[in-house]
């Protein structure tokens, strides 16, 4: 994936065209993948609001937000991992495990906040395990996270014996009706995390190291970046955001589901790809969020327009392939342009 493309000092924006005024702004917007994605989302939203009277209602928009929260949160951590040139397939497992851990902890009589902390910790532990295996033992990220995904799924099934865990204490069930700034907690946390992560990746130096690692881990090492530590940190954050998504899901449903998070890793990888994250160390969290929004809109459209749900899987796969194709084409073009500039 991290082909020999050295994007000179990583700029999150994209190429700039030397034109003036409003046309310059529009041109700049459309010259970035983020801008194109934003345009597609607007067009799709307009089309959907014409096609269905239910689309532009407050209830439906909130439902979209709640439905996409899990994948949008997971996409944040996934983006960081993709930036380093890795991949995290254990996201769905961390998501599921965190719900099971919090349910078990609550049933064991542990108070609400420590239980939630334990759930988040379980995700970070999976992430740390991934990071250590990948950076210290030098195992391919795909294989590592495929392995931890299988192991974690096995643990979930062992802990639940194949059933969902219900009958959680009232102190936790109260949270079902919690509102943060008038929004459901999952939507509020999603927005908060996205903003924080996006700003951090733009301005916070330690986070920006990930761009250099993605560009070339050898050069990153040469300029004094602790590649192993930064890469491991990316996997830990990925486990954390996935676990946060799973925790919020459990807070919403009031039960630890053994099925939760199955296949979520695909969405968490496709969303950043749609935003152009990860090919040779480029992309922003905002782009990944827009990718998740597009997926959320499409799944919402599937429901509103009565398309068989069985199509979802095909659509997801087709999206993964096409998003990856777009990314490859873009990287190739950038590579060619760089070569032409050099001449």
């Amino acid at each position, binding site marked *: *994936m991290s082909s020999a493309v050295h994007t000179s000092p990583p700029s999150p924006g994209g190429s700039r065209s030397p034109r003036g005024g409003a046309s310059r702004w529009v041109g700049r917007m459309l010259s970035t993948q983020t801008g194109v994605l934003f345009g597609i989302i607007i067009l799709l939203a307009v089309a959907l609001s014409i096609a269905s009277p239910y689309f532009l209602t407050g209830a439906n928009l909130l439902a979209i937000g709640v439905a996409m929260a899990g994948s949008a949160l997971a996409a944040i951590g996934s983006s960081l991992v993709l930036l380093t040139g890795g*991949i995290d397939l254990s996201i769905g497992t961390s998501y599921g495990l965190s719900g099971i851990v919090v349910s078990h902890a609550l049933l064991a009589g542990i108070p609400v906040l420590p239980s939630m902390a334990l759930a988040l910790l379980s995700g970070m532990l999976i992430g740390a395990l991934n990071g250590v*295996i990948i950076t210290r*033992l*030098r*195992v*391919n990220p*795909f*294989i*590592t996270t*495929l*392995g*931890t*995904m*299988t*192991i974690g*799924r*096995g*643990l979930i*099934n*062992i802990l639940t014996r*194949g059933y969902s865990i219900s009958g959680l204490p009232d102190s936790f069930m109260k949270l079902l009706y919690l509102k943060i700034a008038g929004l459901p907690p999952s939507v509020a946390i999603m927005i908060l995390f996205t903003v924080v992560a996006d700003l951090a990746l733009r301005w916070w130096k330690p986070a920006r190291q990930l761009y250099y690692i993605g560009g070339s881990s050898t050069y990153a090492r040469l300029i004094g970046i602790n590649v192993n530590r930064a890469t491991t940190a990316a996997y830990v954050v990925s486990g954390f955001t996935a676990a946060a998504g799973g925790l919020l899901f459990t807070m919403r449903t009031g039960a630890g589901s053994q099925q939760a998070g199955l296949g979520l890793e*695909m969405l968490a990888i496709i969303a950043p790809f749609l935003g152009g994250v990860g090919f040779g160390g480029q992309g922003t969290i905002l782009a990944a969020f827009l990718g998740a929004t597009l997926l959320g809109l499409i799944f919402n459209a599937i429901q509103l327009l009565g398309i*068989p749900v*069985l*199509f*979802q*899987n*095909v*659509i*997801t*796969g*087709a999206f*993964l*392939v096409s998003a*990856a*194709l777009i990314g*490859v*084409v873009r990287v*190739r073009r950038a590579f060619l342009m760089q070569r032409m500039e050099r001449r």
Partner: protein
Amino acid sequence: MPAAKEKAAVSVSRWYSFLVERRDLTLLLTIVIACAVISRLTPHFLTFVNLQTLGLAVAFNAIVVIGMSILMIAGGIDIAVGATYGLAAIVVGLLISNGFPIVPGILVGLGIGIVVGCGNALLINRFGLSPFLATLGMQSVCRGILWLVSGGHSVVGLPPQFVVLGQTKIASIQLPVYIMLVLVIAADVCLRRTSFLRQFYYIGVSPQSAESCGIPVRRVTSIAYILVGFLAALAGILDGARVGAIYVMSGTGIEFQVITAAVIGGTSMAGGRGTIFGAFLGVILMAILTNVLSLAGVNMYWQSVFIGAILVGVVAMDSLMGSRETR
């Protein structure tokens, strides 16, 4: 004293390199010892019925591992084998249970495997996607189509003429086991002897040098992807015939087991190293392990924990050994 120490060190490193280089012999020894120990521990292991079960458990994965190890030797990988396996089986099942003639039905199923392989090859060799990503996407697409065409229902009531394919016994061993043995031996010999298949080793070591030696790298690796798809479809169809029904979940997780088996058998994730015989032994070892866990009454879910841990453990060991070799 130092001389003796040095001598000991030399003999240790010689042993070490023997273990690394002759992975197939080491594995064979491991399997024999494991069988001896297990048969001491439980009387149910070395029974004819259990060995029959074991043979069948090996058969389908071994057919897939042939293609997978050739592909991995060439530096590729295919995550979509499980989905191809299931999709081909379900399509064949749907066709022939609705009155489609059997032989053309099977050919359609095998054709699906080839088409999926072509799709992977196209995405990877023409459009330059990473093999992992392309086949992950393909897996999702295949599973999706599988759910669409089957509507989420398993296919039962297959005609007896089809079921025969998986259930005929010759000398009280089922037909798929023979098919597997023939394929494994043929593929192993070909990979050792034919110059066409030897090219995969060159490509795996370094695609650039292979290209400059005049090997059409893309065309040759495309053939590997198509071969994997074909073999996965074949295994899926045979599995369906053996069971007499085709489950919607058929083939789920095969990709793990097959990749793990190939790596245990000495195939390198980085390409350029491995044999089909070794991978075959890897499949046997995995099957014995699963079998023993079942005999010992270990929860099915723990088995997936074990398999995941083994996958990561073996690959980690391999990469550590690899880095030591090059040093």
